Structures are given as structure tokens and as C-alpha cells.
């Protein structure tokens, strides 16, 4: 049975009683004490006492003593005296925690630091890109060093295994485009233009862009996590000591596999999106598959397809480089692994969309 702690003050003696345990010690430690009159703290009546209880006694002792002479603590058992001595030795003198307010200057400084950090990251990532490209050229000169098995393995991981999700996504996008386009075009009696709408938007933009976004979420994060875990377990350092270049072994196969597979996935997405659009046009607008096909073949410039496909390897390069770079940045703790994996996905999706915008301007200028 525990007895609640209690304070009694008589003349110059403060008498503590009860069990001084962590669960109900706060009242004692924070109790009001008359300053200067107490010279003895008597703990004879105290039953059990833990560290928190000893902390309360020592903080009372210090508060009563103030700057002057400290009161005597009497009546401690041997164990309690030992505990009190330990506490006196280890309790910080000034318990007050300095409060720090965030000023405007602090915010400006944080902003400046974030900006320079972003600039440094951009420079470092460009450097990493250069390193990877240089390694690739080196491998062209020495093709025996190319890790074919690793490349094929990653091609299966990022390419073949992504086919179901990519084709389903593109199919649904085609369906949505046809469905939404139909509602608008029907108002003008221009239903058949839905073919152009679907063909151009999917071939030129959506097929490859959305595939790249899915691949960034699927494979970019996997690259970061896998390389980051190797970094954490010092596998990458082990490779370096064995004279194995981590870029050749880990980064190049992943980036190459992505560059090879993203156009293929983009093509699958295009076909699947067109099929989705065609089926929806047939159901919703009565545009039969043969009409759809005829209009598609006669009206759609092959460059729409070309523009989409040209972008695919560049998107792949962005996703691969960002994913591997962030993986290499992982430090020893699990926290940074999770953080960098999410950075990797967000950054690669952002950069893919930014690159897509640049490509749009470029193709506009070139006129295709």
C-alpha cells in the first residue's frame, strides 16, 4: 500500500512523511516553502523513496537554502542517504530551460540556408549525373565490365512487373478522356473529334508522363530504399574497399534498365490508353472501332507519337539519377532512409513534370 507524501512545517523543521515515489511527487517538489526559516528537513517518516522522491528532497533543500546555508536533511536511512548523495551530485544546478523565440532574422537565416542547400544539392546531383554518364561511356569502351545480369534483373523489376499497373492506369485514363470529351463534343455535334482528342493527349503527353510518374513512385523509391539500406549496412564502403565501383554495379544497371524500359512501358500505356478511349467512344458516342481506327490513322500525325516517345528516356534518366543519388545520401540512421525515399519520389515527379514543360516549349519552337 502506498501512502501519499505529506509536508508538515513546525518551527524550523520541515517534516516529510509518506512514500515519495514518482507517481505523486509533484506536489512536494513544487510546494511553497517559507524562505530562510527552515534549517532541518526531517525524512524519518518517509517510507519508500525513489529517484524522483530524492529529486524532490534535493530541490526543496536547494530552494530553502537559496543562496545561503542549506538545511540539514536528517533521518535518512542508509539507502536513502546514498540516493540523496547521488542526486546532489547529478542534479543540474540550474533547472531553468532557456526559452528561445524564433525571430525574423532566424526565419531569414533558415530561408537562406534552405536556398543554399538546394543549390548545393542541384550541383551535387549534376555532378552525380556526370559521373554516371562518364561511367557509362567507360563501359562502352570496356563492354566486358557491363553487368548484364543486373541490367536484365532490373529491367524485369522496373519494366515487366510494372506492365499491369501501367496498362490499367492508361486504360482508365483513355476511358476518362473519352467520357469527358464526349460530353463536351456532343454539344457541337462533333463527336468524331473525340478520336483526335484521345490520340493527341495520350500519345503526346499523358501516356508517357503518367507512366513516368507511376514508375517514379514505384521504382524511384525502390532504388533509394535499396541503395540507402546498402549504405546503412556499409555494403557500399565494402564494395569500395574491394575495388568495385558502386556506380558501375548499382547505379548504371538501374539507370540503364529504366532508360530501356520506360519507352516500352510508355508504348504499352499508349496502346492501352487508345483501347480504353476507343471502347468508351463506342459505348458512349457510337463511334465504332473501325471508324475510330480509320480516323486515327488518317488524322493523327506520327510526330505526336514521336514527341511522346522522345521524352521517355529523359524521364527515365531523371527518375534513375534522382533515385540513386538520394539513396547514396542516406546516413547511418533509419530516419534518413525514410526521409530521403520520400524526397526522392517527390523530387523525381517534380523534375519529370518540369522537364515535360520544357519539352513542350522546345517542340513548340521546333514546330512538331
Amino acid at each position, binding site marked *: 500500500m502506498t501512502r501519499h507524501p505529506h509536508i508538515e512545517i513546525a518551527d524550523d523543521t520541515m517534516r516529510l512523511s509518506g512514500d515519495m*515515489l*514518482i*507517481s505523486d*511527487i*509533484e506536489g512536494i*517538489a513544487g510546494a511553497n516553502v517559507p524562505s530562510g526559516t527552515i534549517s532541518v528537513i526531517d525524512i524519518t517518516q518517509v517510507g519508500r523513496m*525513489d*529517484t*524522483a522522491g530524492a*529529486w524532490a528532497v534535493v*530541490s526543496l533543500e536547494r530552494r530553502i537554502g537559496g543562496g545561503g546555508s542549506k538545511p540539514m536533511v536528517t533521518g535518512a536511512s542508509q*539507502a536513502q542517504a*546514498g*540516493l540523496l548523495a*547521488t*542526486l546532489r551530485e*547529478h*542534479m*543540474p544546478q540550474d*533547472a531553468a*530551460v532557456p526559452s528561445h523565440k524564433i525571430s525574423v532574422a532566424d526565419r531569414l537565416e533558415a530561408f537562406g540556408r534552405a536556398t543554399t542547400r538546394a543549390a548545393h544539392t542541384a550541383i551535387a546531383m549534376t555532378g552525380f549525373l556526370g559521373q554516371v554518364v562518364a561511367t557509362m561511356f567507360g563501359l562502352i569502351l570496356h563492354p566486358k565490365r557491363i553487368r548484364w545480369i543486373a541490367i536484365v534483373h532490373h529491367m524485369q523489376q522496373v519494366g515487366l512487373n510494372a506492365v499491369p499497373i501501367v496498362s490499367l492506369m492508361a486504360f482508365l485514363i483513355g476511358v476518362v478522356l473519352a467520357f469527358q470529351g464526349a460530353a463536351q463534343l456532343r454539344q457541337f455535334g462533333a463527336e468524331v473529334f473525340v478520336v483526335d482528342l484521345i490520340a493527341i493527349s495520350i500519345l503526346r503527353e499523358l501516356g508517357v508522363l503518367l507512366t513516368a510518374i507511376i514508375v517514379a513512385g514505384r521504382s524511384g523509391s525502390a532504388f533509394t530504399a535499396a541503395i540507402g539500406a546498402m549504405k546503412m549496412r556499409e555494403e557500399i564502403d565494402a564494395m569500395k574497399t574491394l575495388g568495385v565501383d558502386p556506380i558501375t554495379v548499382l547505379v548504371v544497371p538501374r539507370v540503364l534498365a529504366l532508360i530501356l524500359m520506360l519507352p516500352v512501358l510508355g508504348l504499352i500505356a499508349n496502346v492501352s490508353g487508345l483501347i480504353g478511349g476507343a471502347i468508351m467512344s463506342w459505348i458512349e458516342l457510337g463511334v465504332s472501332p473501325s471508324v475510330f481506327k480509320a480516323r486515327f490513322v488518317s488524322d493523327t500525325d506520327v510526330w505526336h507519337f514521336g514527341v511522346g516517345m522522345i521524352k521517355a528516356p529523359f524521364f527515365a534518366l531523371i527518375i534513375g539519377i534522382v533515385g540513386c543519388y538520394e539513396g547514396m545520401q542516406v*546516413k*547511418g*540512421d*533509419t*530516419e*534518413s532512409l525514410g526521409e530521403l525515399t520520400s524526397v526522392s519520389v517527390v523530387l523525381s515527379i517534380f523534375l519529370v513534370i518540369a522537364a515535360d514543360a520544357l519539352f513542350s516549349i522546345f517542340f513548340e519552337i521546333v514546330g512538331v
Partner: protein
Amino acid sequence: MTMGDPIISVRGLVTRFGTHTVHDGLDLDVRRGEIIGIVGGSGTGKSVLLRAVVGLLKPAAGEIRVFGESVRDTPELQYRQLRKRWGVMFQGGALFSSLNVQQNVEAPMREQLDLSPQTRAALAAIKVRMVGLPENALGQMPSELSGGMRKRAGFARAIALDPEIVFLDEPTAGLDPIGAAAFDILIAQLRAALGLTVFFVTHDLDSLHAICDRIAVLAEGRVLATGTMAEMQQIDHPWVQAYFKGPRARAALVQKRTA
């Protein structure tokens, strides 16, 4: 329970992973206030025993009583009360990586008790200094600490609520000899100051010599022998002989005598 009863009592413990039997009818008693060292070769289930005793692992059979109460069949609410009375330090410290040292040490207080932030901070500061960490460690994240400091912080978290029993899983593994010796002294000091019972899984012969009251040797799925370091020398079992009379044991013994 009376004072004489063992604080931890394990009877007929059987643990299995799939078809692999780790413990096969293991018996062990730990007395109140002692430091018991659990030794055994790799894979003899030292850490598994620790996990079974604190209830992280469900044994296939057997009875485990801590403070006289069964760990296995206690209802959740009572188990929570039981859990307040022990602290566990895992091998790498197992600090929560998203919290700094102070928040880590405060975590058990925050979960189990209703204390004001000031009190929590004051108690955490004391515990951190008690385990020999500098005060500026309070604000540091676990990733910024060295291995030894992480273990100390893990120990501070384990003793945050002044438990009656502390379970330590290889606290000195991976520390340099100076750090390991300092950790041994720390454990002995805190045992004296807080009246702890220490359940100490270790490989470290120096620690066994320095602070353990009794040693329990795990082998062949059970406790082969318990006793003091001196008694271990007399036991006639090839593994025990090899462990306690090998070159490293002799070196530790010599060190102890000259010290």
C-alpha cells in the same frame, strides 16, 4: 510474496521457432537485489529468454513469474502495471530515432504517468547525468550519438521510472574496454543507489567478474548451472570449462586479482 521469494522465477520454459527448439524445460530463479549474468554460446537463446521473461515472446510451454505474477496469463491491465516495474535496455539502445535523448528518456514517464513537462524534464536531466552522459546530450538525436552513448541513453530510458528490475541485453558489447568498464561501474552504482535487480545478458567475462553476483549458464536448451564466478570454475562440463577457463577467462581473472 515474501522477501525471500525469487523476483523472477522461470519453470519448464519451452520456446520454439518453427521446428527449432531454443529452450527445452528451462528453470531459473533470480533473487531480489542481485545482478545475475546470463551467459551462453551464440544461439543458446539468451536474448530469447530475456524476451520471454518481459513478455515480448510467447513461449510454447512453461511458467514465468515476475514479482510472483505470471507474465503469460496476466490480463492486459495488470500486465501494464507489471511492466511499469521493470525497464529493458536492448542491444543497440533501441532509442526512438525520431525523438532526441531527453524525449526518449521522458517517453516512459509520458506514457505511464501524469507529470508536468517541467518535472519530466528535470527527472530526465537527472537520469541522463546519472548514466554519465554530458548535459548537452539531452538535445541530441540518437543518430548523432556514438554507440556507447546510445547504450547509456538506452539505459537512462530503462531506469526512467525507477524500476525494480532492469533487463540489460549485452550492454557492454561493442564498447571499448574503458567504456565497458565504466558501464560496469555504472550498473553497480545504480544498483546500490536504486536497489535494482539486474538481469544481465552478456558475453563479457570482465563484466561477469566485476559486477555479477551470480551467473547462469545456458546450454542445451536449459540452465546448465548457476553460481558465483568461483563456482563456475569447478563445474565439469566441456563448454563451461572452455568458457570460464579459456585464455580470455584467465586473462580476466588475472586482471581481477592484480586490481
